[in-house]
């Protein structure tokens, strides 16, 4: 390589490294951040919550959708949230503003349990 080319290559390398370092530190591009702005979903079907354990970042809104042919509810065992009855295709949403583990169940069919883990 010529001296000039070497210089350009080195400069480009430094710039690229710098960009990578900057990007790595910035929250705006990593995959994790994608979901803290978006909703997470729990599908209710066959008398069960899917996924039974859902992990989301703080600030997420979780939406339960009932796909079963029987009504269900989503009720926090710690009294933090309590949905109205959801008939087929009805939904309920709750936004988790604090980190923690939030167990819940269906108050109509209490054997149906799930939890949301907020990190």
């Amino acid at each position, binding site marked *: 390589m010529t001296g000039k080319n070497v210089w350009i290559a080195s400069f480009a390398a430094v710039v690229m490294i710098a960009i990578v370092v900057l990007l790595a530190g910035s929250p705006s591009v990593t995959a994790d951040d994608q979901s803290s702005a978006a909703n997470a979903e729990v599908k209710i079907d066959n008398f069960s919550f899917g996924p039974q354990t859902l992990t989301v970042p703080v600030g997420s809104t979780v939406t339960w959708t009932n796909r079963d*042919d029987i009504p269900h509810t989503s009720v926090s*065992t710690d009294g933090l949230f309590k949905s109205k009855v959801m008939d087929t295709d009805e939904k309920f949403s709750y936004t988790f503003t604090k980190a923690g583990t939030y167990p819940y169940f269906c108050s109509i069919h209490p054997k149906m349990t799930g939890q949301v883990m907020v990190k």
Partner: protein
Amino acid sequence: MPDKKQDLIDQTLQDLNNDGVDRRGFLKCMAWAGTGLVWTMSGGIPMSRAFAKTADRSAGKGGDFSFVQISDSHIGFNKPANPDVTATLQTAINKINAMSHKPDFIIHTGDLSQLSKPGEFDTLDQALKGASAKQIYFVPGEHDMLNDNGEQYLQRYGKGTKGTGWYSFDHKGVHFVGLVNVANLKAGGMGSLGHEQLEWLEDDLKGRSASTPIVLFAHIPLWTIYPEWGWGTDDSEQALSYVKRFGSVTVLNGHIHQIMQKIEGKVSFHTAMSTAFPQPAPGTAPSAGPMKVPADQLQQVLGITDVNYVVSGRSLAIVDSPLGA
């Protein structure tokens, strides 16, 4: 001796069906053709008689009477398993009205409505107005307690009841107790009676002669049928301990939308069919939800239960009949 007696009971129950199919197989076989079966306990040994013969009870002995149990009408349900639950309820009522002996009253063991909506309760009431028996006793199912902790249910059917709707009454010497095991359910649990109701029950039964026939009725089965699907009551053991001393105890439940029976000593347990839709046998489907059957077979898996009390008998005779052949 207990073994010989059990063999006789098993043999008799087997013979009753004449085709070697057991009670659970009955639903699958569906060749019942609408006839009912009476079995009574006489001196501790069950005997069967064809329904048609015992239907002639014109020589009733004073204290004899009968009542009908219906369950799980789910007014408001409209999915493929039964798009018209009001129609099948009406069929059940017509069947009650067509019985040759008029029942003294009807007991509805819960899940009157699908979503606890006022309109659903209204429709039920309207249909029941046409029943030959004007006195109807209710206990709520979990579907009757939605959104308002059973406020709507209590307003309509809770007169004279305590707590979440429990109560007792006497009829021609038989003591009936309506229990509520669908309120304040705990995560991961099954049905639940609760401390207050259990205390009330103990008190209610205190001092009654052990020869008083007892009938307990509640929505969720008071014996453990299938815990994975919540088919049982967490604290029923305590309730059953209070009735242990009585000579004849009958437990009538609903919730599972199929017939299951068990005899344990002097206690007979029975769950009724629904008038709305059937549910699968334990563990035979991914969940306990409504089970779709071919439309022309729907009437065979829905039904009513005729319960007969004969003064000389030790127990109540329970006859299940499907809505149609």
